[in-house]
């Protein structure tokens, strides 16, 4: 039907599949961040998660985004990446 050439409308930088970061082998002794995205009832949900993580030997640090509607400020991302080995983002709804 054709042998035409088209120009790629995508960013091209996107790899075909995104690779996950290496996983933690154990939670014991690890510092895990819990990021509350500021939606209602996020605190109760993350309190429960924290309890389980502590039982597994992890140290938990809590963080909060100023508003769920906007991406986390870069300072907050950097703070978490410096202070934690892993982070769990408390999505809601």
């Amino acid at each position, binding site marked *: 039907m054709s042998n035409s050439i088209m120009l790629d409308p995508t*960013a091209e930088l996107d790899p075909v599949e995104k690779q996950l970061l290496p996983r933690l082998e154990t939670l014991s002794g690890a510092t895990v961040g819990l990021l509350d995205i500021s939606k209602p009832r996020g605190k109760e949900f993350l309190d429960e998660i924290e309890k389980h993580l502590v039982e597994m030997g992890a140290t938990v640090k809590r963080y909060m985004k100023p508003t769920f509607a906007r991406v986390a400020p870069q300072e907050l991302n950097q703070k978490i990446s410096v202070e934690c080995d892993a982070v769990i983002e408390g999505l809601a709804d």
Partner: protein
Amino acid sequence: MNQSTANRITVVIKKDCPTCALIEPVLAELVDEFENRIAIYVQDDPAFPQSIRVKLDDTSLEFSYANKIEIVPTLICSNDEEELGRTVGWDKSEWRQLTGLTNLGNELVDFKPGCGSKTQDPGMEEILAAQFEKDLLQARKVELAQSEDEIEACFDRGWSDGLPVVPPTVVRVIRMLKATNRAPDEVIGNIPPNNLPCTIEKVAINAVLAGCKPEYLPVVLASVEAALQDKFCMHGLLCTTYFSGPVMIVNGPVIKKIGMNSGVNALGQGNRANASIGRALQLLIRNVGGGVPGGIDRAVMGNPGKYTYCFAEDESDEDWTNLAQDRGYERTDSVINLFAGEGLQAIVDQQSRAPESLTKNIANSLRSVVNTKMYGAADAILVVSPEHRRVFRQAGWTKQDLREALYDNLMIAGSEVIRGADDIAEGMPVKFKDKLLNKFRDDGLHIVTTGGSAGMFSAIISGWVASGEKGSQLVSQKIQ
């Protein structure tokens, strides 16, 4: 006698040009004089002219394009280093001067204008640019197999919003880019959600996909710049579970220049500019930003406007400010405004002839934005129809009068809308019980006019539930 310093002569001609045919004897004289130092390029028929034995085939137009030939015949005189001069058409004195041959073309008339070069045929310039300017575009080229259908290939590669797109061929993209002076490799910004850098070229490619004419590109570019304003919060808007997407309202002279619809069915189908400009931004966010429904776009239902939601304002009443003026621009400015919104809800009022009555009715409908018990949550656009505007204008009201009257009509006692009130669990937090609330935050209600001249129907475009500083605010961008 040859008195010119030129030692090389180049002539570009085509058979389909009476002037080129006229100068055939002149070409013969030049061949005799300059022998192997003359090159005659023929654009259409390499056999023409018959009396000249040595001529060069330029049916590919490569030489003509590279040397910017606009008219045939063109005579170029040069020495070993550089071009010394050129003339177009047949002008006996100029040809004699440039060649140094004082008796050249003795038998001919003094002057006969030439014809357009084949490089100037409609659409040819972009075709030749695509062929001969390899470095013009940077985007990855995707070569289709012989068996592939172009439109299906775009679907297969995930470039579509679900409707067919216009295949972004090199020629189409070059044609699109001609509508701007901005360099194709200029980065316009990082497109959310992946925040990947986006060039003017990528915007042009997506504008082609969306079905834009090149003359729409400046509006599309302004829409991208508006969407990238921090206040608009495009990232959050894309990711939300809520219905909203970008709604575009265009103001100013550009509306008529590119033929946008601000009349009958302005928010509906049928106008190419309205439809494709709104679609281009959505496709750019999908393709460059990586914002794909079901991926990071988590809308519970979305809304049909996420294909495209773009219209122009009716600016026929000079005493009624347009949205751009409300945002601080002049009426003579062309501006695109972006609002995080969804849907369209009708407000029918065929009885009110007094502005007070009409305002109250409109306010009652506006209370339903998000739900009737949420105040100050979502912004909204009130779309006033021309007939409703007439009711206000005949009573001497300005838009500001309407805005103030709506404000007064949209107050409510907090106790009526707190959670639990009216046996409805949803509502405002109990702390607002003793407060007086307005339906909209300050600067949260915008008023525009569009639509056909018959019909006493206005409408509401409800905003994102995360409006204001915590989420998205209406943004405006001047169209260059």
